[in-house]
């Protein structure tokens, strides 16, 4: 299930963000391929991948004898829609407000009159 705490926790680690970047660049990689990019034991990489998988950021598929790891960007999108959009929208609204108040040649913030 989507759990924001788990997603934030999974993202709060350099190695795990690096693993996501690796999958972003090239999706569907094996543990062996990912491990070769990190100065870390196979077990360490496995542990990080498990945290990412539990947070829903990585999904795996079995292809024959191989287990392939895919980036699932949806939880990041959900966090974006829930947290980032909300605050950037306010910033944009404030800038629009500033622009209209400057354009109406008043130096005070625009106020709505009843």
């Amino acid at each position: 299930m989507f759990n924001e705490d788990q997603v934030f926790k999974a993202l709060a680690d350099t190695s795990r963000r690096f693993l996501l970047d690796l999958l972003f660049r090239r999706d569907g990689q094996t543990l062996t391929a990912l491990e070769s990019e990190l100065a870390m034991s196979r077990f360490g990489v496995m542990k990080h991948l498990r945290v990412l998988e539990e947070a829903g950021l990585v999904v795996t598929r079995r292809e024959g004898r191989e287990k392939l790891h895919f980036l699932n960007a949806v939880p990041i999108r959900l966090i974006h829609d829930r947290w980032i959009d909300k605050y950037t929208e306010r910033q944009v609204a404030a800038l629009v407000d500033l622009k209209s108040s400057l354009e109406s040649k008043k130096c005070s913030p625009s106020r709505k009159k009843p």
Partner: protein
Amino acid sequence: MQSLEKEAMTLQIHEIYIKATPEVIWDALTAPEWTVKYGHRALHEFQLSPGGKYRVKANQQMRSIGLPEVIIDGEVIEAHPPRRLVHTFRFLFSAANQAEGFTRVTWEIEPQQSGFCRLTVTHDLAGAPIMASSTAGKYNGQGGGGWAWILSDLKTLLETGKPLAD
């Protein structure tokens, strides 16, 4: 081994958990009146049996910028309501898109605990790099927006009754 990984690279897998019944999610994906309520707000038409037609029609805004009447086409391969739908998928936005030909989309709806379903979209984009960059892309306010953005919008619509960007 080499070819196996190469093949896998053309797959995009997106998963989302939605608090809704499989039937509601199925309708949201396949019923034309639902498909205009989220994502790119374009009407999707499915003939829900193997060999049936799949078409997405441009909305008014899309037509006003010169897109063709039918912007996506394909064919239904499998339809098992409300759990599994497989169809081919081709963009008709431009000649370059059209030349890439058909790709394959698999939708799976799996009930989980406490009223949630897991919705998985597996898109095999072999031979379609232009489409792959669109479907992996973010919403940019100008028509772009890949699976992650569409699914997030769908979840919001089904769980709150209102889409994200209204």
